[in-house]
């Protein structure tokens, strides 16, 4: 038993085509029931709508251009410190902040040592002390030491 009128099913076929998948969800079951009850009544309309559906189905899906998403992300106004002000933190974005904190600590340590070391040690002692200090942070700062020794 369906409450849909014939004219409404004809309108649906005319607007949405012959595939029930494309019919309005709320009316789909009624429309399918009416079509099943009177196949001859709607045969021409189904054939006509289906022929156009087949024409439209020849159009391929539109592929997403390679690199577009990356390009969009690169041009987006991303804030490196955004994770500090929201609840959805991404570990990948902590690195620059940790790195800058570490650099600040190293800089402060270097200033402090610059004052302290010349008064109590020779040049070799100075180099080894600085090397030890940097080694504590598990980083290779040999290029800075090379400059100091030259």
């Amino acid at each position, binding site marked *: 038993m369906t409450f849909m009128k014939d004219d409404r099913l004809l*309108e649906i076929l*005319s*607007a*949405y*085509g*012959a*595939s*029930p*998948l*494309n019919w*309005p*969800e709320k009316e789909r079951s009624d429309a399918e029931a009416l079509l099943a009850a009177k196949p001859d009544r709607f045969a021409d309309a*189904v*054939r*006509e*709508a*289906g*022929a*156009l*559906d*087949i*024409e*439209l*189905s*020849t*159009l*391929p*899906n*539109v592929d*997403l*251009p390679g690199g*577009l*998403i990356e*390009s*969009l*992300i690169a*041009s*987006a*106004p*991303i*804030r490196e410190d*955004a*994770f500090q*002000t*929201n609840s*959805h933190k*991404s570990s*990948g*974005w902590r690195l620059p902040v940790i790195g800058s904190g570490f650099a600040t600590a190293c800089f402060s340590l270097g200033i402090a040592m610059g004052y302290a070391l010349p008064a109590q040690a020779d040049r070799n002692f100075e180099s080894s002390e600085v090397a030890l200090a940097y080694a504590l942070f598990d980083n290779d700062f040999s290029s800075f030491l090379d400059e100091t020794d030259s």
Partner: protein
Amino acid sequence: MTGTCFIAAGQGLCLPEKQHPLSRMSIDREADQIKRAAGGDPAAIRAIIVGNTAQLNALAYRMLRSHDDAEEVVQETFLRAWKALPRWKPNARLSTWLHRVALNLCYDRLRKRREHVMADPPDMVDETPGPQGQLERRQNIERVQLAIAQLPERQQVALSLCALEGYTNKMAAEILDISVEAVESLLSRGRRQLRQILIEQAGDLT
């Protein structure tokens, strides 16, 4: 493949089921995502881009029939979105708004094309020679694309959204900012006119 199949004109046809951003996310969750994106949160920005780009690109390509133009429209759409997000009011879904912006940009480009003689026509289909069947398929695609291009813009949009990209009539109504009944009318008139154009070209439909 998920989707549905039917028999028409003696041929079986299966249509894939498509998912769209408009139907996926709750309004609350989207509002939170927009707020975070407006603050520059990379995860939220990425989610908005990944969740909408394919649909926007497909719609722009259907309207403009040029991959380059479609890509530029998508980029411009997101640039406008980033400017607008800090002032965003949740009156509409972000996806709906993005689609509207993209559509307006498409309309602008179509208008400019009509006003100026184009030095470079849109890239309709790849003209690389190939086997006979492939060539016929390309010609068929071009024939249908050209027929759709002859429809009024609003009918093109409605057909692209509902018949080609699998949007529901409600989603199309939101994007076009019209009633569902008006979308249905556009679809009906669009299909009727398209059928007429194709019949005039080929003498009959498949």
